[in-house]
């Protein structure tokens, strides 16, 4: 539980921080796509009897880079590219897994997230990589914000657009795969999207939106993990359910406030 909490707190900072830029750039589907594509890496790891985590990381990052390259070299939209790549990689993973006989507990924990699956060696990957991503986001905060706001004019304000775009896709890919063990392939992108969507409703500036996203996500992780532990529910689903509940509550409160005003 302690390891899961430490991992959850790290992911609760890195995913919503990145998610603020992801939602501003309308790239929400990218997170989902990379998470699903990483299942191919997990399957390769399980079939080859090696640690699936680094293989999933390699597949996730490769997918992110491939989306970046194809977006620029073809006229196909980002959503369509992500759709094709993630369903392709997911199908490959499913076929590989179908070749394995018997019950696959490891696969299930990757699909839905599992507190008990977080081991000390996973923390040695999650913590430094999360710290590294946060460091990059803080260093290039201004550049990523301008890129997300209006890519065309960003270049006029000392933003090196193409390399930073590529870096951003890599960061999203790494962060998503880091979250797969705790939250699961199906639900990990929720921590990227739900907290910034809530923060957007209440924040009065961009910086405050980032802060509220992280604060919100940390609360969902702590409450979600506690409930998951007490009720023996899947960790990812419980964290996301808490976040989705908070989203609905705040949206309803905002709706009531605006009805009263009108």
């Amino acid at each position, binding site marked *: 539980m302690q390891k899961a909490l430490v991992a959850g707190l790290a992911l609760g900072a890195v995913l919503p921080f990145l998610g603020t830029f992801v939602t501003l750039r*309308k790239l929400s589907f990218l997170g989902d796509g990379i998470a699903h594509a990483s299942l191919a890496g997990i399957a390769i790891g399980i079939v080859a009897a090696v640690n699936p985590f680094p293989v999933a990381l390699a597949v996730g990052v490769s997918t992110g880079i491939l989306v970046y390259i194809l977006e620029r070299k073809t006229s196909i939209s980002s959503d369509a590219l992500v759709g094709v790549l993630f369903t392709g990689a997911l199908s490959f993973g499913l076929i590989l897994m179908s070749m394995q006989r018997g019950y696959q507990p490891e696969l299930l924990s990757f699909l839905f997230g599992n507190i008990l699956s977080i081991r000390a060696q996973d923390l040695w990957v999650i913590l430094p990589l999360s710290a590294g991503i946060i460091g990059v986001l803080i260093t290039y905060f201004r550049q990523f914000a301008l890129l997300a706001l*209006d890519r*065309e004019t960003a270049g006029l304000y000392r933003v090196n657009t193409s390399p930073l775009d590529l870096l951003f896709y890599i960061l999203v890919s790494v962060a998503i795969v880091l979250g797969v063990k705790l939250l699961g392939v199906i639900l990990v992108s929720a921590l990227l999207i739900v907290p910034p969507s809530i923060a*957007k409703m209440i924040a009065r500036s961009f910086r405050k939106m980032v802060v509220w996203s992280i604060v919100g996500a940390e609360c969902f992780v702590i409450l979600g993990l506690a409930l998951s532990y007490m009720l023996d529910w899947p960790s990812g689903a419980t964290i996301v359910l808490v976040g989705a509940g908070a989203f609905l509550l705040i949206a309803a409160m905002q709706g009531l406030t605006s009805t009263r005003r009108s």
Partner: protein
Amino acid sequence: MKTLNAIEVHNLSFSYTSAEKTLEGVSFDIPHGSICALVGPNGSGKTTLLKIMIGLLAPAGGNVLILGKPPKESRTLIGYVPQRFSFDKTFPITVFEILHMSHPGRSRTEIMEYLHRLNMDGRADIHLGTLSGGQLQRVLICRAMLSDPAVLFLDEPVSGVDVGGEQTFYELIAYLHREYNTTIVMVSHELDVVANFADLVLCVNKKLVCDGKPEHVFTAETLTELYGKEAAHYHHKE
């Protein structure tokens, strides 16, 4: 040696597809301190030409010098106000945040001073998405002016701005030109405004059709060549 021209364009060509040239063999000079208007029909390549001049597009052939340097090396010397600034209006970014992120070296006091000059007092901490078209245009001008640009590029700057806002906008540009001797290059469809405001007109329709002072350029023949028969009436109204 300091060049007398703010902008020098030589034999410029550009195409988005291999089938059709958007610009071909375009050459002109814009002297320091000019107010230059780029006019021409829709799809004539005006915005493309502007984007090449500021280095957002790379030309297929020819070259551009802004204050004697290629566009990408002169970005600190130019300001740009785009035709459309498309952003998610529900996003909580404030006027101050976008200005400070664009110019991190500028202090809050300096940014407030520029907002004051543009009659935007008290607007620093409000959401960008809640501004009217005219107010957003002022923020974008403020963003461009914070670079202390020697050349200011404006792409159809009053599209989406009401009549009162238009008048104020042109007064503001005239003030900037007068106070700072900024060279201004503006894409415009408003020939009456251009006739009164600009001292150099470049007529573009895939190539440079003509250039010169407004009174010399806006003749029935040129306007017909540029826009078709109907536009020739504009000349007779003057």
